Structure formats: structure tokens, C-alpha cells
């Protein structure tokens, strides 16, 4: 273990950083920029589509209780299907369009979003629901103006986990020619045995996940000023959801 080894290791590290830096500078306009944008778009669209499906499903599950257990089994089973298999299954129908990535990713978010929508709605206190009815809210108005706003913190907690999970999963779609930053990793890096694009892909992917999470936190604080500093059941429910969904995500990341 001489000084020479340490010195040469340091030199290697400096060289590696320099290489990553040079590669980034040379490829910023193409492919890094467009791939980052594609990654963000794929993730955003998938989570949005997932939310649009999860809301009516969750409403139904909260209103008609017997419906919920089979529904939950359904979305969990979907979640268990390997993503690669789903991509290939869809290829004949959607080809190499973004939908081949978006549809499976959106379906995966359901396993996180549907339970959160249901629990968020169930957590609206009964006396609040009854007071709303007694004051002359019709069913739709009650849903939009009372129940959904109160369920919002739990739903947003689900969205946070779903978006981070989706951002990490988009890369897998690179195996079928999609996948945003995943392509940097696979096509530009892995296949050419060249580490710089892999490192850049990872860093940007993580940064995107952080950004998405920060945006959602800000959105929630803005939309639910009333929940701020509120030590109540809602907070613990929310934390429980984050924990549960995080477990689900780590499981999924391996498939």
C-alpha cells in the first residue's frame, strides 16, 4: 500500500470525472437534453394517466366497500407483472410510440394510487360528510368541495411515491427503444462499455426524482394550507402511506 497507489487512484478518479465532464459538455444538446426531456415527459404522462384512472377507481372502491378488496388484488397483480413483459406485449399494438412505455407505467402507479385515494376518502370524518349533506351539498359538489380536498394530503403522498417510482422505472423501457435517460445508460454507455453516459444518466434520473418530489411537496403545501402544523390522525395516515408505498417501490425496482 504505497503512496504511489493512492496517488494513482486519485489521478484515476480525476480522470474519470474529467471524462464525464467532457462527455457531458460535448453531448448536452444531443442526446442528453432531449433524453432528459423525454424521461420527464414519459414519467409525467404516466403518473397523470395513472391518477386519472385511480381517481374513479378509488371513488368506486370507497363508496362501494365490497368492490375494494378485489380491486386491490387486481392492481397488485398488475404490479407483479414484470415491466419488460408488458412492454413487449404492447409492442404489436402501440409499436415504438411513447404509449408502449406510458401504459404499463401508468398501470403500475395504480397499485400505489388506488389505495391512497380510497384511504384518503375513507379518512374524511363521518360527521363532516353528514354535515355537508345536511347543509345542502349535492353528491357531486360534496365530493369535489369537501371529500377530495380533505383526502388530498393522502393522495399527494401517493403521488410522491408513484412519481419517484415511475421516474426510476422509465429507464427499463429503453430495452424497447424508449426510456429517456435509460437510453443514455443502455445505448450510449452499457453497449459501448463506456461509463460516462451511465453516470450522467443515473445522476440526472435521481435529480429528476428529487425535483418531482419537491414540486409535489410545494404543490401540497400550497393546496392544503389547513393541513400545515396539524398534528392529527391525517398526518400519521399520510406517513403510513409513504412508508407502505416505499416498500412497494423497492420491491418493484427489482423487476
Amino acid at each position, binding site marked *: 500500500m504505497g503512496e504511489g497507489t493512492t496517488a494513482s487512484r486519485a489521478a484515476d478518479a480525476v480522470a474519470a470525472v474529467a471524462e464525464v465532464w467532457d462527455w457531458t459538455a460535448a453531448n448536452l444538446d444531443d442526446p442528453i437534453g432531449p433524453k432528459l426531456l423525454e424521461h420527464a415527459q414519459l414519467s409525467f404522462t404516466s403518473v397523470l394517466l395513472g391518477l386519472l384512472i385511480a381517481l374513479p377507481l378509488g371513488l368506486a372502491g370507497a363508496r362501494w366497500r365490497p368492490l375494494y378488496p378485489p380491486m386491490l388484488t387486481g392492481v397488485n397483480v398488475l404490479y407483479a407483472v414484470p415491466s419488460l413483459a408488458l412492454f413487449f406485449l404492447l409492442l404489436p399494438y402501440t409499436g415504438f410510440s411513447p404509449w408502449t412505455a406510458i401504459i404499463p407505467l401508468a398501470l403500475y402507479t395504480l397499485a400505489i394510487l388506488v389505495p391512497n385515494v380510497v384511504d384518503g376518502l375513507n379518512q374524511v*370524518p363521518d*360527521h*363532516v360528510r*353528514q*354535515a*355537508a*349533506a*345536511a*347543509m*345542502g*351539498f*349535492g353528491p357531486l*359538489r360534496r365530493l369535489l368541495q*369537501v371529500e377530495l*380536498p*380533505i383526502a388530498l394530503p393522502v393522495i399527494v403522498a401517493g403521488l410522491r411515491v408513484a412519481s419517484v417510482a415511475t421516474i426510476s422505472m422509465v429507464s427499463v423501457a429503453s430495452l424497447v427503444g424508449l426510456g429517456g435517460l435509460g437510453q443514455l445508460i443502455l445505448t450510449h454507455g452499457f453497449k459501448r462499455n463506456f461509463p460516462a453516459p451511465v453516470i450522467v444518466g443515473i445522476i440526472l434520473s435521481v435529480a429528476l426524482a428529487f425535483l418531482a418530489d419537491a414540486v409535489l411537496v410545494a404543490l401540497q403545501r400550497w393546496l*392544503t394550507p*389547513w*393541513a400545515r402544523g*396539524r398534528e*392529527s390522525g391525517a398526518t400519521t395516515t399520510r406517513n403510513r402511506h409513504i412508508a407502505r408505498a416505499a416498500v412497494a417501490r423497492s420491491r418493484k425496482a427489482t423487476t
Partner: protein
Amino acid sequence: MITFEGAGKRYPDGTVAVDQLDLKIPSGRTTVLVGSSGSGKTTALRMINRMVEPTQGTVAIDGTDVRSRDPVLLRRSIGYVIQQAGLFPHRTAVDNIATVPLLLGWPKARARARARELMELVGLEPGQGRRYPHQLSGGQQQRVGVARALAADPPILLMDEPFSAVDPLVRAGLQDELLRLQAELHKTIVFVTHDIDEAVKLGDTIAVLRPGGRLAQVDTPERLLAEPVDEFVAGFIGYDRGVRRLSFFPARDLPLRSDIVLSAETTAEQARSVAAASGQPWLFVVDKDRRPIGWIGSAGLAGEEGPRPLGTMGVIGYGHGFTVSTDSLRAALDAAVLSPAGGAVGVDTDGTVIGVVTQSDLGAAIWPLGDAGGVLAATSDNG
């Protein structure tokens, strides 16, 4: 006028919550529904705003069957207050109160202005308007609940155990507030409670429901306490109904004696002669402003030296006094029970002593009332 005609509710599981209810609830008055848990009070109340549909009979408001009205519109015209207040956690106090006006399509500014007006009416500070419900105390939340129910000025107010979740002191304050509001607003109030004292305090009429949702008795509070129709009602209103009933009789008619009220400067000798002349075992001592000091017994006076003033001797505490002009016989009796001398001290609203009621005079004033109750009960049996 709200009319229940043969109204009944049988839930799908077979529970009969309300059975053959015939009840007229007069406009502009407070009608209280009392009864043990599960006797159908909430169910009956909710038939009025169609949150529960009767399975037999009808409920009508001013002659119109409520089932002919759109439930959503009907409910906007009826205020509703529940136990936990049912406030919207995601709206500020002001926005909670403005709920129904906004549903009715008022412009936002006008609805808010109205809400602030109501906050003042129910005794909330303007600064509390921007708070969310979890930032308010239980009593304040109930006030917001009452304000919210009143916001669109509905002629009818339904209140389901609105004050039962707050401590007794706050509850008494809210009850007083409701009495004050009602004296001003003259709403048709239907008020549900378990608490017979609350019912007696607030109700112009009390309807007692028995388990199984049958009406047991409808009467004024005074008559209900004087002549419960049967064992069930008597048991429900409690063994101390006799004492409760005294709250309907004013204390101002009690014979007040001022001859046995002596100032602190009076000497023992003078006091002994007053005691002898009046034949009373207890004398009451006041200071130079006629504020109460305490009782002194003639037995204790006997051993004192003649010139010694009463103010320098030990007196016995008097518990509390009763305000002659505003209190009831119940307060006077309570004052007497708490005093070791057995008499009650009658004070003016400024706290100065007007006179004292002796034990025997108080007994003489109360005794015939119990008898009157018996007489009334006998006549009502015939009618």
C-alpha cells in the same frame, strides 16, 4: 310549524327507530327532544330535513310534506348543528360559516361579510375568522357550528346534541348564548339532548321519547317536572325533579327578614336582645356597606361581654347568597342547604344584603308547591 303525523322509521335491518310519532312543533319556539340513547331522537330530527325518509306517516313543514321538496334545496333552508360541530377542516372559520350562502349563490364578498356578522353574533373574535377548525377550542368550534347553521337565516334550526362534547362550564355559556340568540331571532328550534337539565333550561316544550321510538310525553318543562305521565318519564327526569322544578318559581316572593340582620358595630348586648325579641337562633352580620359577613348563633352570644361589637367575634360562613330579583327558589334553597345556619341570604344585584330567609319560612314557601304538583297531576289524569 313542523308536523309529524304517524311518522315512523324502520331501518332495513328491521330496527324500528321511530314509531307512530305524532308531534306538532310550533314555529318560533324551542322544542327539545329527550330520551335515552337509541330512542330515535336523531332519526326523528333527520326526518325533518330528509336525511332520513320516514317509512310510514308524514313530516310536513307549514303544511307541505317535506317529501314534495327537493332534499338539497330543503336542507339549505334548514340550519343543522351536530355534536362534533362537523366543521370542514379545510376551510377557515369564516368560510365554514359562509358555506350555505355560497351554496345559495351569494357573491363571495357578501357571504364573507355575512359570516363576519354572525361571528360577532355568536360571540367570536374577528381574528378567529381566519383560523382553521383545529386551531379553535371545542367551545369556539361549536360557536362556529351555530353561526354556520344560522348564516342563511333559515327559519328552522335542527340541533343534535350540539353542546354535549364540551365541558360543563363552556356548555352553560353556550346554552345562555343560545337563549339570548333565540330571544332575538325567534327561530323554530328542534334541539336533541340526553341532558334533562339542558332540556329544562332551553325548551319551551319538551318531548320525551322512550326506547323503541315512541313518544312518552310532550309538555312544558314545568309541567313535565310536576306531572310526569308514568314511571318511565319520572325515572328519566330523575329523583330530584322536585328540586329542579323549583327553578320555575321566583325567589322574590320569599319573606325576607331584615330585623335579624345586624351591622358589625352592634354590641353583644344589643344582639342578645334582638335574638330574644325575634326568637331566632341565628343572626346575620353585615359590614357598614351592608355586604354579607356571616351568621352568629345566639348560643355563642350568651357568653360574650355586653359591649363587645359583633364584628370582632367569630362568625360562621354563609356559603353563597341568592339574588332576590333574578334567582329562583332553587337557588335560594341551595343557598340555605349550604349554610350551617339553615337560612339563605338574599342580596341585591350589587351584592348588598336585602334580608335573610329563615329555614322555616323557606320550608313554608316550598312545601305547598310540591302539593300543587300533586293536584295538577290529579286534574290531568281526568283530562
